[in-house]
């Protein structure tokens, strides 16, 4: 049996790969003829996703069902029968990842004019502009250069037709604006918005756009865009002046929102899962991945609008839950041990040129390239018959086995997509996988060369590769056993959930909590946000109960890890617990960091906190709401300055408690003073509800913060353009959230960078978006509020994802030591120690050796000591040391100077 994943977008791909990589049979069902979903339309993401697509297409455990749709589903968890475009399959569990669609745009936005585009299309236009002949961004209508560009946010969301917030648009608009500014610094950019709902690094990006790039953010809901002769006129309300103004723009990008996929309602009908009133699959705050039907999981934008990063985390999390209901039946790829043939002195180079389904063949004259490559003196065999990666791999395998080739040059798509796949093919055929040289004929030739030069360029690239291939060396592939145990650091909701996820998958877990009891930051909360009324304590108690009774779980409280050594699959550490006479020595293969965040920032001095009795914090106020509330006028102040960051739950918490106060005491005057209300996603409804129930929202400017003096809160409201005074009985402060103290130590131990004390990464490169819980240190995963303070549902999804990623690793019996690592020639090393200082993973040690003093040819005394670099375990092959080392004493295997020189010598 196996698991059916429905939807071949980024979420479906992620779930399928996590499952297939851990030995589960996966049926990946996609209605379109190609994988990728909406991600394929995002220029940058397409590049990031393509390696994953290639992996899916070539994965032995994935049954790829393209152009297929689910027609029928019957049975129950553990035994579902599916009918997929006429094929019958049986699975134990199902993951729904059907993605999103974008709303139809109202005519009033000038949609229909070629110069008004939706953001997804704008990505393509921007990409085309960069590679166009002029390199300019031009208007689609008349080809004139765009000088004034406008973005309109919340198109098709936070409106009558779609009342919730689409979550992703604020950040992707900022990213698009940034890309435009980077490429066209003179572009005038105007962004119309209602609230800027960004967090963490995106918050920094927006600040940079405003301050450094001169992007104008205008707070106004634009009612219409009027296409006129040669310009687009945007009408908007100038809130500062209270007037309606007009602005002429050359091009307008509509940041459209997200809606449930059009196929979702049918899918829901077939599978029987409940949908919510917005049409998304219904999940809950405390079970974000489970649908109403046991055995059917959901993830990504099928459950709510969200960013790619969150979708991917949910997908991994859903994979873990699905795996829990299924049996592992398939072997894990890459686990076979290979015997490699002896490579003698005779060089037999085989060249394989793949047409890449026309993407190379249409531009490059492959037969001509093959003919000329065949003339090279060191080439024994050329194959140019293949058109897909699969065919090419078969050809390589038989070339090695039947023709005795001992160097392989593969020319095709980018190594980023297929390097692992081609190396595996070599290894299967018995050739050391490092006797392979790759040529990127698609991205670096066919896509970028003028067709008339492409063939010539391809020949040159192949000649360089053939030359380099001569100097390749066999790198021994060493394996070490994976320790099937995990260490989870942090016993809050994320840590406990991750630990349970891993334990339920069958692995022993060491759970380390620094406090005396499990529970973490959520212990500070009373009732959870939203109308559900769940109590934090109930949820925690249930989890604690499961954790403490789980037989695979070792719980250490008042404890922390020390002396961590090792690498992915094989770590060692000590657990030091207060009051415990002996430190526990543990071994583990994977580590999950779930240190959470601290809510104990004391806003001492702000708004009289500490001095005035009636000034409190939101978390205290949450507890007060559980009892009797005898305050008639309450002022909640959001964005109180202080140490830390604005949590993703910050606005939700403020709005929720304002609403609950109002519900409890309908006659009370409840004010919320804010800069931006960030009730993303479905939480937008809470905001709407609060306004309808009479909570009064007053927006202030950062430059003119509210004051609380002599019992009066005064705030300059930027909508009324006037100062407003409130005499509150209670002032409630929403304060920043701080990182866990342990993060500094863990960052040092595991070499994972911190940003503002959290494990978030600033440059959100595609790789990081697509691996949200992985870190630069393989085998170490991050989740929950340790990454960035997040809501419970997000913490649960992320920690399940971290558990899933850890299990993918733990499922393997063996890992290979990194082959492409640095080595030192001790004879040449001058011992300067710069390599030791720059090594990002401390894999280089400077050792001291005695220097004999030889005078007049006689060794007299042992005079001094010289230093020599030694490379040790942990090298990740980044090559920093080798690129510094002036004498070449340090070199990186597979990138030896002679290999690079051979290639260069040919090029020059």
């Amino acid at each position, binding site marked *: 049996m196996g698991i059916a994943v429905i939807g071949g977008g980024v979420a479906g791909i992620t779930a399928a790969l996590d499952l297939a990589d851990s030995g589960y049979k996966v049926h990946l069902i996609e209605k379109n003829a190609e994988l990728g979903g909406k991600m394929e339309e995002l220029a940058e993401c397409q590049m990031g996703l393509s390696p994953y697509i290639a992996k899916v297409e070539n994965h032995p455990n994935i049954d790829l069902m393209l152009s297929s749709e689910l027609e029928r589903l019957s049975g129950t968890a553990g035994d579902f029968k599916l009918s997929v475009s006429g094929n019958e399959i049986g699975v134990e569990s199902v993951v729904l990842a059907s993605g999103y669609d974008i709303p139809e745009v109202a005519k009033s936005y000038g949609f229909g004019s070629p110069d008004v585009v939706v953001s997804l299309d704008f990505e393509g236009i921007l990409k085309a502009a960069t590679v166009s002949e002029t390199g300019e961004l031009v208007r689609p209508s008349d080809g004139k250069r765009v000088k004034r560009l406008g973005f309109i946010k919340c198109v098709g969301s936070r409106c009558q037709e779609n009342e919730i917030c689409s979550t992703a648009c604020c950040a992707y608009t900022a990213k698009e604006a940034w890309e435009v500014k980077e490429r066209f610094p003179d572009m005038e950019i105007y962004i119309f918005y209602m609230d800027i709902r960004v967090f963490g690094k995106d918050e920094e990006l927006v600040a940079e756009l405003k301050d450094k790039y001169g992007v104008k953010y205008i707070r106004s809901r634009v009612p219409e865009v009027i296409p006129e002769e040669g310009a687009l006129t945007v009408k908007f309300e100038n809130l500062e002046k209270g007037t309606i103004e007009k602005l002429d723009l050359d091009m307008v990008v509509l940041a459209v929102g997200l809606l449930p996929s059009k196929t979702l309602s049918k899918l829901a009908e077939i599978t029987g899962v409940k949908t919510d009133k917005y049409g998304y699959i219904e999940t809950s705050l405390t079970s974000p991945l489970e649908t109403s039907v046991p055995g059917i999981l959901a993830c990504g934008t099928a459950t709510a609008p969200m960013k790619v990063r969150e979708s991917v985390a949910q997908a991994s999390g859903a994979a873990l839950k699905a795996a829990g209901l299924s049996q592992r039946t398939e072997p894990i790829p890459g686990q076979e041990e290979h015997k490699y043939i002896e490579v003698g002195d005779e060089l037999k180079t085989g060249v394989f040129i793949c047409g890449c389904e026309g993407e190379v063949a249409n531009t490059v004259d492959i037969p001509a390239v093959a003919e000329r490559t065949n003339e090279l003196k060191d080439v024994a065999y050329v194959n140019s018959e293949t058109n897909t990666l699969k065919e090419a791999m078969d050809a390589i395998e038989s070339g090695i086995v039947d023709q005795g080739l001992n160097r392989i040059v593969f020319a095709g798509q980018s190594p980023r997509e297929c390097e692992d796949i081609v190396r595996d093919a070599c290894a299967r055929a018995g050739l050391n996988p490092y006797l392979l040289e790759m040529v990127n004929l698609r991205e670096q030739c066919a896509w970028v060369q003028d067709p008339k030069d492409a063939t010539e360029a391809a020949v040159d690239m192949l000649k360089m590769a053939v030359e380099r291939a001569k100097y390749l060396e066999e790198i021994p592939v060493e394996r070490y056993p994976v320790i099937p145990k995990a260490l989870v650091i942090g016993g809050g909701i994320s840590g406990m959930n991750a630990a349970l996820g891993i334990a339920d998958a069958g692995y022993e877990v060491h759970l380390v909590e620094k406090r005396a009891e499990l529970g973490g930051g959520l212990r500070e909360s009373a009732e959870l946000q939203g109308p559900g009324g769940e109590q934090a304590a109930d949820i925690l108690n249930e989890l604690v109960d499961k954790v403490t009774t789980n037989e695979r779980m070792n719980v250490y409280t008042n404890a922390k890890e020390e002396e961590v050594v090792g690498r992915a699959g094989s770590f060692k550490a000590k657990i030091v617990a207060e009051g415990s006479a002996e430190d526990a020595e543990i071994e583990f293969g994977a580590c999950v960091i779930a240190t959470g965040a601290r809510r104990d920032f004391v806003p001492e001095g702000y708004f009289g906190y500490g001095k005035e009795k009636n000034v409190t914090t939101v978390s205290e106020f949450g507890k007060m709401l559980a009892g009797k509330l005898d305050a008639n006028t309450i002022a909640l102040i959001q964005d109180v300055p202080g140490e830390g960051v604005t949590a993703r739950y910050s606005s939700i918490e403020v709005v929720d408690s304002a609403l609950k106060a109002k519900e409890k005491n309908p006659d009370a005057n409840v004010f919320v003073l804010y800069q931006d209300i960030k009730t993303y996603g479905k939480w937008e409804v809470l905001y709407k509800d609060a306004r309808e129930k009479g909570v009064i929202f007053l927006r202030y400017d950062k430059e003119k913060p509210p004051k609380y003096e002599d019992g009066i809160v005064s705030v300059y409201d930027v909508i009324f353009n006037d100062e407003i005074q409130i005499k509150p009985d209670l002032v409630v402060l929403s304060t920043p959230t701080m990182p866990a103290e342990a993060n500094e130590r863990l960052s040092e131990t595991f070499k994972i960078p911190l940003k503002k004390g959290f494990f978030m990464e600033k440059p959100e490169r595609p790789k990081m978006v697509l691996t949200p819980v992985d870190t630069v240190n393989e085998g170490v995963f991050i989740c929950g509020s340790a990454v960035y303070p997040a809501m419970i549902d997000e913490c649960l999804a992320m920690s399940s994802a971290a558990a899933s990623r850890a299990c993918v690793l733990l499922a393997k019996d063996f890992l290979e030591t990194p082959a492409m690592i640095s080595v030192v020639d001790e004879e040449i090393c001058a011992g300067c120690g710069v390599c030791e*200082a720059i090594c990002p993973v401390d894999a280089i040690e400077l050792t001291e050796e005695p220097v004999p003093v030889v005078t007049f040819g006689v060794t007299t005394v042992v005079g001094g000591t010289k230093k020599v670099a030694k490379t040790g375990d942990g090298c990740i092959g980044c090559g920093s040391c080798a690129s510094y080392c002036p*004498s070449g004493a340090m070199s990186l295997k597979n990138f030896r*100077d002679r290999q690079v020189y051979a290639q260069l010598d040919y090029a020059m």
Partner: protein
Amino acid sequence: MKGVELKSGDLEGLFKGLLDKKAVDCLILPHRVGNNVAHMMVTDKDKIESPVPAIFAPSFSVNAANIVKGWLIKEKIGIVAKPCEIRAAIELIKLKQMDKESVLLISVDCSGAFKNQDYADHAEEIGDWVDSAKIEGLKGKRIAIREACEICDKRLADVGDIGIVRQDGDNVVVVGITDMGVEALSAIEDISLEDKDIDRSGEIEKIAAEAKKKKEALPEISSVEALEEFLRDCIVCKNCREMCPVCYCKECFFEQPLGKPVGGDLLNIAELRGAIAVPVNQLMYHLTRVYHVSTTCVGCGACEDACPKDIPLTRLYPVIAEKVQEIFEYVPGKDIEEPLPFTTYEEEELEDKLR
């Protein structure tokens, strides 16, 4: 700062004292040899001759740091030398080519220097000290100061462990710059240290202004073609590397088979390209070297002095190095505790400079 004002003649006693009191086991310092001035390494204090005026003499032979490169023994060596030599020694300490505890660095004020053969030929006209008026005068007589010295703005004895500051008249002020320097001076009898605060900011500004003018007047190498032309006569003898105090490799890449192909290797490369210029790697050698020394080059000009083909290498090495050092806000040899720029990588840094 702790220091003492002495008659310049008393320096002889001071150096002897350093040896006598075992503050150092040996001492490298400039001596007069006929008309010339050269470094001597002295272990016997009685062999120390009157060091003034030799230590201030405007003559440059070998960068003294180059001599002690690889001083890996525990015995302590003292070096009396010009600031550029001391700064090179400090870079070598950072590069672990010697141990901080095994060297006592004594810098002396420098008025600029002539190639030491020029100095020997015109010792009388040049004298023991030059100022800008004198330098211009000598130029008229075709006796040119080294270009490296003309553009140098770090000529004052403010680096190392001890500084010897030349005063008007016949006096010098000896200051202890580091604890080790103060300790060494304190060990010597006849010397009693007192607080000496000397303000040389006026002098520094004047030197910097003059140097800046000269630097701006240097011909620029503005393109790869111009660089090829500049290096046209290079015979790849690598003497510039031999004499460079901060080139510290045990075996230079250009002595290894890849950097210096011979026999069959050479033939293979020629076969690949049909024709190659020989000796090979002329441009590559200099580009590689300029990259390797760009953060640590102290601008001493030893490379130019060493070139048998009279290529004015000062216009290449120190000029490029200064630009690189500006980016990293790094002055080689200024502070022994300041880490080498390459070792202080931050993910987010230098963004404004790299734009």
